[in-house]
């Protein structure tokens, strides 16, 4: 009996193993996906590190926006195809316009000067009929009360995964949800990174945060805090589909913030649902289980392995744009114009921490798109005689396409303007900074360390941002001259840098006062063997002027601390735009934003009264010739004062397989996945072709094993048969 049972058990397990083997062999045997999965309209991509937060009030990085940007929907979005970047309504029914009021509460005309405006009001009308994704927080009992609030602890005990909630529901999006989210920015437990910034702009947000912080102290840590109760005039509901936001003074950039997930609607039911006892222990929270109105919802949330966005069954009617840039039609980007979005059923993100397996799986066809790491650059890209990048023959043969886009990012070498040697407004220090600006050849840096994936910077504004100028008008005259014949900027001669250095009081890199060589200190987070060549390069740039450079490599924490306290002399730093407006770059040089005094983003502690006055004027203006003139003057001042060596604007290089459609790089949009389309049949065909297994190494390994074991076996048998004498002789 026992033997029979044992036999059945063994056969059962054998069956399972054989079934598993067969299941694994129905497609290419090296496929990382379930059988048949790649035959569906699913987009396969990867993420490099697990997102820290998925709460729209907390998330503030690209790796988090990758997910929540496609789940939550703020009032506005960037047009997918048009350039320069253009805002358009998303959940808002129309583009909101501001009304201005003076200190006495009287309404001002739309062109009122910023100095007169005490308050702005944005009234936002929400598009009716938008519904949330299915979610247990919306589930209702027959009597209309919430199904899971309060939840029976015994019922919760049986729930391990979020999918275990048997019932879900939905409801219409209302203005209340937007106002609730703005209040959430002040929630002490949420810790929104923009609370400090928005408190300066949204009326009453700071006071609301203080009130809520006091109330939170009286409650247990995970208890529900009723953030809707305290008075708050910064955001109010006008009617079911309209809300109003009150802003201090004039702040036209607020519209850009309305396109960021921070201002997406969040239903209060979700907060009440997640704040129940037992939810946090199961990782059920708004931070990990989003609830939005977007094209996708998070169907699988395993940040250790895979994140799966699935088509939101309640997604409203939204269509692919029918207009874009002139070249878009030719590039096939308008082929899906008017089609209902999203164009794929699912997006599968697999955790891929290392570049090598990511790249190899892309080449096998298991990822639909990929970036290009420096390791794989030479395999993927050829730089032509004209300096332009193109695909390598291997990539072309695979039908891979390349897209290049300028990123709204600036890298610079910063001088601490509070430093006694390099800083200050004295002519001597200014000439020293200018000399260094000429000597540090970032063209060479771009060529060596970024594989040419960057554009030389002539000022603080990247290409694509209003105010940026191209050609002769756009060069930094302190560092470059314009070669009209070749139509390009030429770096000034090193002799000129040496002359400036001498005028600064350091002829041949020696201080005329002391006779000692000039030594400067460079703080950086780069360290270790991989950073050595880069740091050596910096030393060489300064050595051109006979300046000794001491590199002080440090970790992120110490570096931040030094910058915060103004203890760094020179440092490398970058800025990635929050929104495509010159204000978001020029504020980095605005005096009141200095790190030392104000803890702002002006890491160089640069302060120039004229620049600051112009910035105050420029920040509230609409784009136009008048604003351009102010920006030109500000850029001119910054170039002459040289608080930064303007380094470069990175360009992003992306590869995608031929079966991926509508992939136009959009550096500002966070919800681009709904526009993507794939052709699964082509993908499967290529995957099969590229992944045929080679079994000969198995046979070769077997033969090798026999070749080793056979003589060993013969030797063993010979020994076993050997007599004592033979053994002794051996």
């Amino acid at each position, binding site marked *: 009996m026992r033997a029979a049972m044992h036999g059945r058990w063994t056969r059962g397990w054998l069956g399972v193993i054989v079934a598993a083997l067969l299941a694994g062999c129905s497609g290419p045997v*090296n496929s990382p996906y379930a059988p048949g999965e790649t035959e569906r309209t699913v987009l396969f991509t990867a993420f490099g590190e697990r997102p820290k937060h998925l709460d729209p009030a907390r998330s503030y990085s690209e790796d988090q926006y990758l997910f929540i940007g496609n789940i939550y929907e703020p009032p506005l979005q960037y047009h997918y195809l048009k350039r320069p970047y253009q805002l358009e309504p998303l959940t808002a029914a129309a583009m909101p316009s501001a009304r201005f009021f003076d200190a006495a509460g009287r309404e001002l005309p739309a062109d009122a000067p910023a100095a007169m405006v005490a308050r702005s009001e944005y009234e936002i009308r929400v598009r009716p009929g938008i519904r949330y994704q299915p979610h247990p927080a919306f589930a209702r009992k027959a009597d209309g009360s919430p199904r899971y609030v309060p939840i029976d602890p015994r019922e919760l005990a049986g729930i391990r995964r979020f999918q275990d909630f048997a019932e879900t529901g939905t409801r219409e999006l209302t203005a209340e949800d937007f106002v609730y989210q703005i209040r959430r920015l002040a929630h*002490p437990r949420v810790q929104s990174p923009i609370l400090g910034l928005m408190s300066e702009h949204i009326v009453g947000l700071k006071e609301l945060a203080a009130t809520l912080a006091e109330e939170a102290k009286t409650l247990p840590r995970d208890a529900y805090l009723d953030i809707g109760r305290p008075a708050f005039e910064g955001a109010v509901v006008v009617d079911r589909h309209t809300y109003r936001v009150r802003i201090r003074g004039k702040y036209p950039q607020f519209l850009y913030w309305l396109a960021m997930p921070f201002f997406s609607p969040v239903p209060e039911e979700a907060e009440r649902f997640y704040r129940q006892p037992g939810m946090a222990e199961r990782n059920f929270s708004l931070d990990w289980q989003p609830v939005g109105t977007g094209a996708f919802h998070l169907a699988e949330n395993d940040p*250790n392995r895979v994140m799966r966005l699935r088509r939101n069954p309640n997604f409203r009617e939204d269509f692919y744009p029918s207009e874009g840039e002139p070249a878009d039609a030719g590039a096939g980007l308008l082929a899906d114009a008017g089609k209902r979005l999203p164009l794929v059923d699912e997006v599968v993100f697999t955790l891929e921490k290392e570049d090598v397996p990511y790249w190899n799986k892309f080449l096998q066809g298991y990822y639909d798109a990929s970036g290009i790491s420096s390791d794989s650059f030479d395999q993927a890209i050829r730089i032509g005689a004209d300096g332009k990048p193109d695909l390598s023959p291997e990539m072309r043969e695979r039908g891979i396409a390349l897209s290049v886009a300028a990123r709204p990012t600036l890298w610079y070498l910063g001088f601490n303007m509070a430093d006694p040697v390099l800083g200050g407004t004295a002519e001597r220090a200014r000439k020293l900074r200018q000399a260094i600006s000429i000597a540090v050849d970032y063209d060479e840096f771009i060529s060596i360390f970024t594989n040419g994936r960057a554009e030389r910077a002539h000022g603080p504004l990247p290409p694509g941002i209003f105010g940026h100028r191209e050609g002769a008008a756009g060069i930094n005259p302190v560092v470059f001259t314009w070669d009209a014949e070749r139509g390009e900027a030429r770096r000034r001669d090193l002799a000129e840098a040496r002359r400036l250095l001498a005028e600064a009081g350091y002829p041949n890199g020696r201080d005329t006062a002391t006779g000692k060589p000039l030594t400067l200190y460079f703080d950086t987070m780069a360290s270790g063997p991989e950073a050595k060549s880069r740091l050596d390069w910096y030393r060489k740039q300064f050595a051109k002027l006979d300046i000794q450079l001491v590199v002080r490599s440090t970790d992120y*924490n110490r570096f931040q601390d030094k910058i915060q306290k103004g203890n760094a002399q020179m440092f490398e730093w970058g800025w990635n735009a929050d929104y495509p407006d010159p204000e978001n770059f020029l504020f980095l040089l605005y005096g009141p934003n200095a790190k030392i005094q104000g803890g702002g983003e002006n890491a160089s502690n640069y302060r120039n009264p004229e620049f600051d006055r112009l910035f105050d004027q420029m920040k509230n203006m609409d784009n136009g010739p008048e604003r351009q003139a102010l920006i030109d003057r500000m850029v001119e001042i910054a170039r002459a004062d040289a608080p930064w060596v303007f380094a470069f604007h990175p360009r992003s290089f992306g590869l995608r397989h031929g079966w991926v459609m509508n992939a136009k790089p959009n550096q500002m949009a966070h919800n681009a996945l709904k526009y993507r389309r794939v052709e699964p049949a082509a993908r499967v065909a290529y995957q099969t072709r590229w992944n045929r*297994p080679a079994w000969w190494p198995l046979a070769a390994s077997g033969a090798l094993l026999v070749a080793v074991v056979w003589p*060993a076996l013969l030797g063993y048998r010979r020994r076993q048969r050997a007599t004592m004498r033979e053994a002794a002789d051996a």
Partner: protein
Amino acid sequence: MLDYILRRVLYAFPILLGVNLLTFGLFFMVNTPDDMARIHLGAKHVTQEAIETWKREHGYDKPLFFNAEAQGVAKAADTLFVEKSLKLFLFEFGAADDGRDIAREIQTRMWPSLAIALPTFLVGLLCYVSFALLLAFFRGGALDTGGVVLCVALMSISGLFYVIGGQYLMGKLWNWFPISGYQPGWAAWPFLVMPVIVGLVAGIGDSTRFYRALFLEEIGKDYVRTARAKGLSEPRVLFRHVLGNAMIPILTGVVVVIPRLFLGGLIIESFFGIPGLGSYTIDAIQAQDFAIVRSMVFLGSVLYIIGLVLTDLSYTLVDPRVRLE
């Protein structure tokens, strides 16, 4: 024996307390709570007020070891050390800085770690011991010399090379297995074979040489000569007598590792995309998540102590002369 185990368990407490103190001291020597707040709040628009709020909400606004403002016992009790570290003795790991429950993460992630580490360990032990016995059997011969040269060559190569080389050959060139990734349940097996093979090959050099040295030492002893003189076959001499008597040093190196198999491998998990505890620890160190770091160090220490106790117990099983008093 029970007394012995009890005594070892009691000894474990001061050791664990010391480990906790060291971890705590080292971590906060490098990272202040302000640093941790900055890491978690991001690089943009971070105000000092936001930093203070983060510290308060995460309980990092208390003194490290001594609270001068508190009264009585609270001077020691109302501190960061007591608050954050002593609860570990009750296996209350709390939440990570991103809010996720650490105990739940450990429960989830130890299985993938084990799925790689256990077969690598068991198959490896079998292969390495067998290979070492084979070399010992043919000691001094061509096979032995070739084997030792091979082992030295394999030992000289970086572990990362095996990973990348294995992925290139088996995953990319021959298309046998997925290059990286993981699926739960039975679907995991295609993802496990390659890391296990890579782990086996990477460990073959030093392990085989170690075991071979043990066996050769035993082979030269009198009881082996006696066994041969009595006419026992060489395999019987090797497997029964030499292996049996070499078990003590083998167990010393092997049993202590068993409980720590749960903790997984750092490089293997990272490159093969295995969502185990090894990659969890590395990520936490990079993210300066003290809650996870202290939990994993504590868990590692506990498992190490368990391993040592098990090692001592295993001696009594293989050598009747050993008594645990």
